């Protein structure tokens, strides 16, 4: 009979797990919607920034003495990898995939004789990198989404990164994050932040009608202001994409967990009922055979 009780206990524990996973799925769905809205809302700024930067980079970028943020330091010995992952787990392969991408790149660089440094965004990114690259992690920022994911968080990161760049602590900076394609699909990707790489469509050197901008006070000065801000924006964008990806990944992970729990409950219930019936049959046989023997 103990077997029967064990089964009962297992069924009820799987049931409560299922309740938790399905609640987490719903929470993730609600958060995903918010994260997506935030990502969409932040797009206009990034677009306009890219447009301005595109036209400025064309006119001022090729001059001698251009900002090292644009032209680079002329070396690529020290690489800073910003690894943006989540603070919490239980979201499928989300964190692991990002870290895997970063790790691959790090080993390539180390093999080529470069120095690699890490900047971790999110607790999970640090946890996963600590064992292999503990001494190379220069800084970590946690609790990125508490109380909410704001631009100030991105500024904190970018201030630190720019401070290190000014101090000559690295030459090239790349950020790793998950691009949000859909709820089911998040693509871990790498984007180079320093030196600035113009995106494919940002080659608008003038206006549609061919006229050219006037720059006030001067193109170099604007560029000097614009480039550091662009770094913050790019980091912010990566963080927002990441947030959406995280919730998407958690949603689908929790969805399949809920489904698995359901299947488990079904099979356990069948097992439970069979065992119960077998027990009853056994008892009946015992009673009948006892009666016959009398």
């Amino acid at each position, binding site marked *: 009979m103990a077997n029967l009780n064990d089964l009962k206990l297992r069924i009820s524990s799987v049931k409560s797990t299922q309740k938790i996973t399905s609640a987490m799925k719903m929470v993730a769905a609600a958060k995903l919607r918010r994260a997506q809205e935030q990502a969409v*809302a932040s797009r*206009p*700024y*990034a677009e306009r920034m890219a447009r*301005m930067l595109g036209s400025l980079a064309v006119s001022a970028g090729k001059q001698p003495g251009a900002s090292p943020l644009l032209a680079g330091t002329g070396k690529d010995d020290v690489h800073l990898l910003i690894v943006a992952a989540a603070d919490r787990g239980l979201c499928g392969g989300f964190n692991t995939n990002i870290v895997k991408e970063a790790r691959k790149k790090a080993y390539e660089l180390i093999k080529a004789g470069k120095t690699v440094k890490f900047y971790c965004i999110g607790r999970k990114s640090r946890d996963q990198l600590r064992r292999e690259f503990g001494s190379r992690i220069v800084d970590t920022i946690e609790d990125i989404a508490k109380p909410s994911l704001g631009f100030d968080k991105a500024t904190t990161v970018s201030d630190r990164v720019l401070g290190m760049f000014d101090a000559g602590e690295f030459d090239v900076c790349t950020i790793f994050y998950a691009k949000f394609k859909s709820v089911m699909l998040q693509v871990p990707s790498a984007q180079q932040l320093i030196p600035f790489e113009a995106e494919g469509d940002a080659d608008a050197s003038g206006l549609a009608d061919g006229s050219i901008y006037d*720059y006030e006070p001067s193109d170099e*000065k*604007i560029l000097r202001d614009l480039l550091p801000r662009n770094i913050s924006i790019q980091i912010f964008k990566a963080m927002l994409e990441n947030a959406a990806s995280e919730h998407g990944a958690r949603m689908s992970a929790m969805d399949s967990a809920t489904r698995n729990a359901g299947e488990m409950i079904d099979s356990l219930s069948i097992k439970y009922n069979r065992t119960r019936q077998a027990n009853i049959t056994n008892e009946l046989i015992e009673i009948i055979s006892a009666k016959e023997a009398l």
Partner: protein
Amino acid sequence: MANQQVEFELVSPEKLLLSQNVDMVVVPGEDGDFGVLPRHAPMISTVRPGVIAIYSGKEISERIFVAGGFAEVTTERCTVLAEIAQPVSELDKATVQQQLQDAKEDFSDAQDDAGRDAARKQIELSEARLTAIG
């Protein structure tokens, strides 16, 4: 010309704050305020902390404080990218004075150049806010 308007957009990193057609907008540029009317020559300028004034007709309909940023002007559009923007009517004099006081204390307490720089920026911002309130 009377029916022509400028498409004015105010964008923060978090969202598009304002997008409307206005008669004229005055932006505090780095080298001085400039007004934008329809068919303004295209230009890009940095913006210092100050007040953006939106005109409908000859009256100022809205005053918005921005803590620096960039402005892009084309013949039919004026886009301001600002990290911090708030309507002047929402600024409270006592709070701002308190902020200024705090920033000044931070400045004298700061141990290194980085801390002093950060505090100085805060002081400048608070002073710009005070000027905005008038």
